[in-house]
């Protein structure tokens, strides 16, 4: 069995799908490409495809990562084969082999860049972002279907910049998760700068 790392782009066609739906879309693209896929064992056998950190619903992705397992060693132009059968919204940019024992993508990803497009009700000056970066802590109360908790956004916030119609942010990624885009909007909203999102893109994903 061989393990291949896929660097791919997610476009609008797949941006509003869930993480599981995207997994399905990529695995079906690989099935259409008639690749010698490795399958999981069990009654419902699935292609062995391990995704990188989940992309939230509504996000495009420029440098997304996934690991695909194949039964046989070499496939001529794996990248081309995948692209020829890819679903709209999926573009495989690069494929390279990696050792079987390589750590999982979720374990080794540590930093993500984001771009949020939209419009401000009141446009913040650049000092607002600087002040947020300089703040000792950015407390936030998170409510999810699973429960509520208080957390500090500050350790996750590595870089932040605002423009007339966008927010660019670098965030720390941990295996247990990270900060959500809504929460970035919230810290601005709590300071009087409401941002209405119309586009979200994970522009980079850095891994060890």
């Amino acid at each position, binding site marked *: 069995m061989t393990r291949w790392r896929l660097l791919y782009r997610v*476009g*609008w*066609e*797949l*941006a*509003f*799908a*869930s993480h*599981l*739906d995207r997994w*399905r*879309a990529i*695995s*079906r*693209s*690989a*099935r*259409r490409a*008639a690749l010698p896929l490795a*399958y999981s064992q069990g*009654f*419902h*056998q*699935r292609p062995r495809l391990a995704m990188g950190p989940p992309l939230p*619903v*509504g996000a495009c992705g420029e440098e997304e990562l996934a690991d695909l397992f194949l039964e046989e060693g070499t496939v001529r132009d794996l990248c081309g084969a995948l692209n020829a*059968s890819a*679903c*709209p*919204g999926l*573009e495989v940019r690069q494929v390279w082999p990696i050792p079987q024992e390589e750590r999982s993508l979720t374990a080794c990803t540590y930093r993500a860049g984001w771009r949020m*497009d*939209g419009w401000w009700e009141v446009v913040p000056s650049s000092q607002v972002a600087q002040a947020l970066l300089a703040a000792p802590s950015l407390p936030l109360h998170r409510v999810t279907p699973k429960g509520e908790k208080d957390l500090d956004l500050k350790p996750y916030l590595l870089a932040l910049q605002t423009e007339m119609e966008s927010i660019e942010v670098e965030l720390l990624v941990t295996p247990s998760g990270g900060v959500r885009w809504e929460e970035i909007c919230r810290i601005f909203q709590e300071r009087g700068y409401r941002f*209405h*999102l*119309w*586009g*979200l893109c994970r522009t980079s994903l850095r891994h060890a």
Partner: protein
Amino acid sequence: MNSTKRSSLVLSPTWRETLYQAERPARYVGGERNAYRKEEAGLLRVALAYPDLYEIGMSNLGLSILYHIINAEPDLSCERVYAPAPDLEALLRRNGGSLCTLESGRPLGELDILGFSLQYEMTYPQVLNMLDLGGIPLRTTQRGPTDPVVIAGGPCAANPEPMAHFFDAILVGDGEEALLEICRLVQSWKREEGRTRDELLLALSRIPGLYVPSLYCFHFSPDGTIEAIEPHPHAPTGVVSRRVRDLETSFFPTRPIVPTLETVHDRAQVELFRGCLRGCRFCQAGFIYRPRRMRSAGLLKRQAEEIIATTGWEELGLVSLSSCDYPHLEELLQSLGPLRAEQRVNISLPSLRADSFSVEVARLAQGHQITLTFAPEAGSDRLRQAIGKQLLEEEILTAAEQAARCRFPRIKLYFMIGLPTEREEDMDGILALVEKLRRRAKSAGGGVKFSAAVSAFVPKPQTPFQWEPMERLEGIRAKRSFLRDRFRRMGVEAGGQQEELSILEGVLARGDRRVGEAVFFAWQEGARLDGWSDHFSFARWQSALARSGLEPSFYLHRTRPQEEILPWSLVRFAAGPAYLWRERERAYSDPLPSNPCPQTSILNGSEGKE
């Protein structure tokens, strides 16, 4: 996508802003694999509409066939639109947005033809909602020359009358050929200046299988029944359903759209046959899709291989009304062996009989990890015989025994209550049957879990029971409650359709055009996804029926005499009213069957044509 451009989806910032606030926004995006996107000018713009959520509508095989038939024509464009969930509807109404097609984002009002698929009566209010959100006048009389032609088809066309005021035309029967004829007619009408909408409707009525309700005037007696139907002087006096004669040569899409999000039947489908060999007297599909027409095993294999190659689906459904009645099933399953072994494609057989052959087929095709679903329908051989369900108790018990031996984990049973000729002891019969099934399964050594869905029988048009009264709400409640209580004590999980939902389905199924007013009021009062029990409000419908001055019991609880003019009298299927009446009579007179599975000409539909 089936166009030359890849990844060309354009979502406006305003629309994206709406999507970020919606639940499951992927429902409204489109751009899926194998979807068409035709941007040329001068095309006739058609959209197929499904009055339920994307996840439900995308599983509909009929719409998929029609979508690809239209798009195969270079000068026609076919798009799709599904019902918005309540949250998106609220966003659209708040922002003044329109309901748009998935392919081009075009508001429905800008189309040339909008065709609804009517699979279930409870989706009627959603049709009105989609028209309203799309900017189309609701009633056919309110539409002008620039409005789309609004048509419908599907099994509900068996009685087109409840929606008569809202559709310009309703297609009865198979749509494969007729839909293109409709497109061509509308296309030529649009090219000729000065022709009126009335002229178009009259021309549409001349297409075989197309019913134009506004060309028929219904006169009602003081007792509420139909006194006479007066057709327009130039309109046909009746409509005979369209039928694809040869499935082997008819179009079938082998590049179907692969949905982006998981749908209820997220799988490839091949249609083994259309129509049914069985003669179940309660089953509308069994009568309106007659006669049975088949595809060869060789063709199905080729189609299956091509669909899997173009979609990447992991599951293949062998669909029909009763897949185990396909005579070449074993040959087909064998020929699909490489697809299963090499490409890990699971085979599913959605409609199984409750007999040992079906259990064996299910085991071979799907393994033993699935829930088997059997529909004994009634608790006694006598009642099953009366309703035309050719299935003996011993066969069901043997099937359960075999299922247990094959280590199937669950068996789900479907029962109906309120069936014609039903007696009190038939309730005990249901309980006794379930108990016997459990014992038989246990004695065979399997740990099979049973669940039972009990729903009210709803008499449907174009069936032998179209003249029958429906059980009263109190009776249905009492029987379901009795059975649920007993099932609980037996440790059998109980379910089934909510009583009030069945009652409403009963009113709409056999309603006349006056019922359309109740549909309108129900929509006005907020009825949307009423086929979903969590969205359904009986009180809202009671109020709507009261506002329209209708008495539900008139539609539900009367035994109609044979000579009564029924609202669907103008619509004819292969099994005509005289044949249906004879079948009804047989329900009251038949002895127990000597051969539980006759393969006679009656069942394949060659009899019953009049």
